[in-house]
């Protein structure tokens, strides 16, 4: 009897303790949340740097002198981890200092960013004011009405930034960039994304020192580029004639895109979203890509940025497709066998055209943000001459203001010096981006999967492209892009 009584008391006590703890935590949390000191009283700037691919930030706090006239505000930015997001830090810091803004720069991996953005915006979250996106993914966000039209809300468009960059961030995109999805046709175009980092596309890189040794000239056509790849290919050394990204999906799709354009494919899809990439011109272009791949290292089908950059760094390759935004720091950095020896050029021509592929990382402003005005101010500062100079000199990124490319203090940087001559030619040529659609993530998985299948010899170029076209058409019919 007494034992039972004891158990009752124990259970009651247990419940009291557990209940009390939970209630205490809830009340404590609520009080803590409600009694957070207003930001104006805090004289710290919080810079969040996360190098792992998680959303958990590591916070570094440093004290700065606030501007007394403006109330302290907070701007939360969701950006890229790694080298792509590093150059922004100094610009954000400076903006924060001058405007009494606490910038929380949360950085996550590339793969997670598109997913995270959709999850947050689908839920109408105002958690982040500015969200970075790779350019093929922002159309989905813009189409859903989750982004603010930057131009309408005060982003100062300047002619110093190449037109193609403004066009790349516009939705719907201008006709010269390809067809627009049925649901977005006729919508008034606005700039929803500030294209500003990475890219701007795939350059052709060739070791000029090696060309000189063999008295070869810089290739003007893909046929000449193929000859160079053949000449230097010696797997026994090992030394290779060609390298690029070969992984299924986006990497191989992006690195092979200009071959399609150069051999006569105007866009990947026609006005009605019927595939054009499997046309005879497309097949011919992709065959040239596959011919070059024969002179590549054996692991090419699994090569991403790291692998192809390593081939240049180790001095084991003469030429290839190179993306300045991804690899210029590695290839032109100290310790690289190719540093200072590589010509970064607008890719050679095909029989029908000489077109580059355009792709950059962008910054977008969340429509649900409570700091839209401040976010626009930050973007304006970012593209200002001062912001872009800091971005280049202190951050180490390439600025998007054309006038800065000619400033000696900027273009003497050995990392970027080789880039600027080609950069101008590249952007002036009006390169064509990936198809502008809300569905590219799905399409590129199918398309890039079949390109990879051709690269490993599972299909011929024509078979792979036809299969991709068939599967993508079925998908586009299912989602209503193609009627009937």
């Amino acid at each position, binding site marked *: 009897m007494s034992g039972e009584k004891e158990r009752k008391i124990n259970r009651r006590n247990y419940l009291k303790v557990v209940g009390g703890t939970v209630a205490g935590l809830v009340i404590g949390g609520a009080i803590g949340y409600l009694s957070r000191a207003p930001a104006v009283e805090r004289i710290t700037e919080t810079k969040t740097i996360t190098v792992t691919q998680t959303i958990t930030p590591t916070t570094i706090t440093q004290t700065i002198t606030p501007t007394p006239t403006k109330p302290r505000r907070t701007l939360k930015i969701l950006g890229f981890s790694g080298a792509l997001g590093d150059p922004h830090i100094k610009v954000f810091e400076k903006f924060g200092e001058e405007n009494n803004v606490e910038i929380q720069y949360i950085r996550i991996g590339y793969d997670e960013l598109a997913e995270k953005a*959709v999850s947050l915006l689908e839920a109408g979250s105002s958690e982040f004011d500015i969200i970075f996106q790779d350019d093929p993914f922002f159309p989905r966000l813009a189409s859903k009405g989750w982004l603010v039209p930057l131009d309408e809300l005060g982003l100062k468009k300047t002619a110093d930034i190449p037109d193609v960059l403004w066009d790349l961030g516009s939705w719907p995109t201008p006709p010269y960039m390809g067809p627009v999805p049925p649901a977005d046709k006729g919508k008034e175009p606005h700039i929803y994304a500030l294209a500003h980092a990475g890219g701007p596309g795939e350059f052709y890189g060739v070791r000029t020192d090696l060309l000189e040794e063999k008295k070869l000239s810089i290739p003007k056509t893909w046929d000449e580029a193929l000859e160079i790849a053949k000449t230097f290919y010696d797997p026994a050394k090992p030394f290779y004639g060609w390298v690029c990204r070969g992984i299924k999906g986006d990497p191989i799709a992006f690195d092979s895109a200009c071959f399609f354009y150069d051999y006569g494919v105007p866009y990947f899809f026609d006005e009605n979203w019927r595939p054009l990439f499997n046309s005879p011109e497309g097949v011919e272009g992709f065959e040239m890509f596959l011919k070059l791949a024969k002179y590549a290292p054996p*692991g090419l*089908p699994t090569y991403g940025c790291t*692998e192809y950059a390593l081939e240049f760094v180790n001095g084991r390759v003469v030429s290839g497709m190179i993306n300045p935004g991804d690899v210029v720091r590695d290839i032109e950095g100290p310790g690289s066998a190719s540093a200072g020896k590589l010509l970064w050029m607008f890719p050679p021509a095909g029989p029908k055209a000489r077109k580059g592929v355009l792709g950059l990382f962008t910054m977008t402003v969340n429509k649900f943000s409570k700091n839209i005005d401040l976010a626009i101010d930050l973007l304006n500062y970012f593209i200002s001459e001062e912001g872009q100079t800091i971005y280049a000199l202190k951050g180490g990124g390439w600025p998007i203001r054309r006038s800065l490319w000619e400033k000696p203090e900027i273009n003497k940087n050995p990392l970027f010096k080789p880039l600027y001559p080609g950069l101008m030619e590249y952007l002036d040529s009006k390169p064509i981006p990936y198809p502008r659609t809300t569905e590219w*993530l*799905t399409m590129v998985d199918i398309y890039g*999967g079949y390109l*990879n299948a051709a690269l490993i010899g599972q299909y011929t170029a024509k078979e792979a492209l036809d299969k991709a076209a068939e599967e993508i058409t079925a998908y586009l019919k299912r989602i209503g892009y193609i009627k009937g």
Partner: protein
Amino acid sequence: MSKELYQKIFFLSPFFLLMLLVIFPLFYSIYISFFKGFLESFCGLENYFYLFQDPRFISTIKVTLTFTIITVTSQTLIGLLLAFVLLQPEVKNKSFWQTIFLLPLVIPPIVAGVMFKILYHPSFGPFSYLSMIKISPPLWLEDPNLAIISVSLINNWMWTPFTFLIFYTGMRAIPHEIIESANLDGASGLDILTKIIFPYIKTLILIAILFRSIDNLIAFDEIMGSTAGGPAFATTTFAIYIYKLAFKSWDLGYASAASVILFIITTTIAIILIKLTYFRR
């Protein structure tokens, strides 16, 4: 509150938790599968209709089943062999070997995937040294026929210790006298394994097969870390396909329909194995 009420609450809490954490997501997933996108518009069975016409979906079924058959068979056989060898009195330092065998179990699968990606690499991995003696390094992850074997090897490396552990524990529970008298009667190692050990641990073998089958039908991390489903679509398993549908395409309705099919396949296989394990005696 009366004692009876307390008892009811305590007994019913796990049931409600189970409903909330297991049953509700399952039914919600089934519900979503009748919509386009994320609850955008009701489409009935359309997602299922398209799914069975989708060549990618059919291909993932083949890849997943091939992967599961290869891995479960090899893990069962190797696990049995390792356990049997370690059981032999001639083997010294048993604790040391057990620890070594079990080490891969503590490595996260995604890490194992990336680790093997580097090891397999024909230009940067250890196999690249073969080119110094004029032998082309094998294209572990680049050859579509070899890739499924390569990812199976990663899975085997990670999970054979699990089957080994189960079998070894089972074998150690067999009365020592039985094996000793079989030895005295002149039984061979194979006789002991097939006629004494197998009947004793038959249930454990089926349990190991059950666990490994269910786990490998939904294998994701090590494949994502090493091949991401490539080359081409050679290692795109169900889980990878569904992940891409859900979080790359954001076609949650279609992804949910695929998940429901995966659930049905996994449950069917599990029920068959459970029946074999528990109701055959």
